[in-house]
């Protein structure tokens, strides 16, 4: 605060204090409401899934009714769940590795001014951000490439991403050029410089991209939905989707299915549904708060660029 005669400040300050207080109160109430609205559905499926399967049918709102992991035990035994979990984890890990490598290595190459046609090549890749051939051509192309019912469908087409490349390139350009030059004088090739200098130095942005792409891989399911029928290659998301479709329309059939799969009779499709949802959401909810700041940094870098 600048210095001002005390008497002159007195009235406006008291006035604004009262207004400020109202504003603060309003603000905290609004934001608390927002937090509750956002978090409650997650909390609800959590308490539902860990409640006692019989007690829970009377309804739960704030606290779990009893405690039982029966729903989890039954869910992981459902046919196909384990396979789907393995597929989901593999696509997340492999897909992320491939994306991070392709985008970062290409971004590094494109920063090198000695590359001929550098601008054209860069644009050629970036333009893909703005157009999309459309659903049917995409579908037919993937089929032509033999990616139908093929695990590679999950990890290959998503390898290059214009947005990631912009972020990494911008980051690499800020690195001091001298480090690279000295390595070059020592006879290191481009790949070696990338591997031992550029990649480690770009860790902040690489981490951001890795998290972006891991979350994307974990969540994506339409490639599975459209092009993969093999149940062995199903992702968790699609298992959940199929289950939701069944239990919203034909809950009787699902109960039948459940009892056939030697699962305790008392479990309702409802608890199984909540439990699968929890299992699919859990990795994100657990990992996400730790990585949130990377995300924020990442999108801010993107925002500054745009």
């Amino acid at each position, binding site marked *: 605060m600048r210095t001002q005669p005390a008497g002159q400040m007195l009235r406006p300050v008291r006035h604004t204090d009262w207004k400020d207080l109202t504003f603060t109160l309003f603000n905290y109430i609004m934001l608390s409401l927002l937090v509750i609205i956002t978090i409650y559905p997650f909390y609800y*499926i959590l308490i539902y899934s860990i409640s006692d399967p019989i007690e829970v049918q009377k309804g739960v709102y704030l606290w779990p009714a009893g405690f039982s992991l029966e729903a989890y035990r039954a869910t992981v035994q459902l046919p196909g769940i384990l396979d789907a979990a393995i597929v989901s984890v593999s696509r997340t890990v492999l897909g992320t590795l491939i994306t991070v490598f392709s985008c970062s290595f290409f971004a590094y190459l494109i920063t090198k001014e000695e590359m001929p046609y550098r601008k054209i090549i860069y644009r050629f890749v970036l333009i893909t951000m703005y157009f999309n051939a459309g659903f049917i051509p995409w579908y037919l192309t993937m089929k032509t490439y033999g990616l139908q019912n093929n695990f590679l469908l999950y990890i290959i087409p998503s390898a290059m991403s214009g947005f990631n490349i912009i972020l990494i390139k911008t980051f690499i350009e800020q690195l001091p050029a001298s480090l690279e030059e000295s390595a070059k004088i020592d006879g290191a090739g481009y790949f070696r410089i990338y591997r031992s200098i550029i990649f480690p130095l770009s860790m902040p942005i690489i981490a951001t991209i890795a998290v972006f792409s891991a979350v994307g891989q974990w969540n994506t399911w339409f490639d599975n939905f459209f092009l993969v029928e093999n149940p062995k290659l199903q992702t968790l998301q699609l298992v959940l989707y199929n289950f939701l479709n069944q239990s919203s329309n034909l809950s009787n059939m699902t109960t039948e299915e459940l009892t056939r799969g030697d699962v305790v009779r008392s479990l309702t499709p409802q608890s199984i549904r909540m439990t699968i949802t929890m299992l699919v959401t859990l990795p994100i909810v657990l990992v996400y708060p730790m990585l949130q700041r990377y995300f924020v940094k990442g999108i801010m870098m993107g925002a500054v660029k745009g």
Partner: protein
Amino acid sequence: MQRTETLNSSVKQRAGKLNRKDGIHLLLLATPFVLFTLAFSYVPLFGWIYAFFDYKPGIPLQQTPFLGLENFRNMFDDPRMGPVLANTLALSLLSIATAPIPMLLAILISEVRSGWFKRLVQTVSTLPNYISWIIVFSLAFSMFSTEGAVNSIMLKTGIGSPPVDILGNYDRVWTVQTLLLLWKSAGWSAIIYLAAIVGIDSEQYDAAKVDGAGRMRTIWHITLPSIMPTFIVLLLLSVSNLLSAGFEQYLVFSNVMIADRIEVLDLYVYRLGLVTGDYSYSTAVGIFKTVISVLLLFSVNILSKKVRGQGIV
């Protein structure tokens, strides 16, 4: 003098040679990525050719009759096209109408003094952005279906008696879907505004305070005008996405009761192509969508250049 010049030029020549060798090396290293982009982003464009033929799956394209623009003309006679376009535009416009909410949210968050509360709100409000629409559907189902939490709370407290099917309500489906989209995306969209707010020079606020401005006034006269450019850019971008109302969202939330009002263009293309098997017509509709979107993007970009002196693409 002459010697140094020849020396210089020979160094330059050597450097030039080295550069050219390096350049070729770099090109070779980049080639796989370029080919890859070609294969996965450009080759599918050749699929547009299906729109001009009467293609049936299983029969090679050469043996199918050439239709020219007939598929495109058919769009005008297609009785589904009107409702589908209306759904798409309505849902897009409704989501554009809620665009100021993330901005207001960012302002509210930025006015929070307590550090932990600020972090809590930010972390929690962005969480829904990272879960799939399938999970959102599952959460919404457990909240709003006839056996869901909302209905049972209403029954228990006696606020409402008969179970209300919120997700199958034909008249409210657009509102419900817009609110769901807002729930999922508001926190995330707020981040960009928060970044813009952080960038505002704090001296402006100090100066305003000295002049006796309260918080409402500083928000109105400093924060809002400072983040307006960001708002306009995002608004323009969403205009260019007018025909791309979220495919996944409406696919998962579609049910018998509301299917008619939720069928957006992307969903229609999928249904025509994969469910009905009409690849050619479906591709034509897809092309129509892409072309309009690109045109919108360019017009919006030109508009942005005129208004702000800066493009957005």
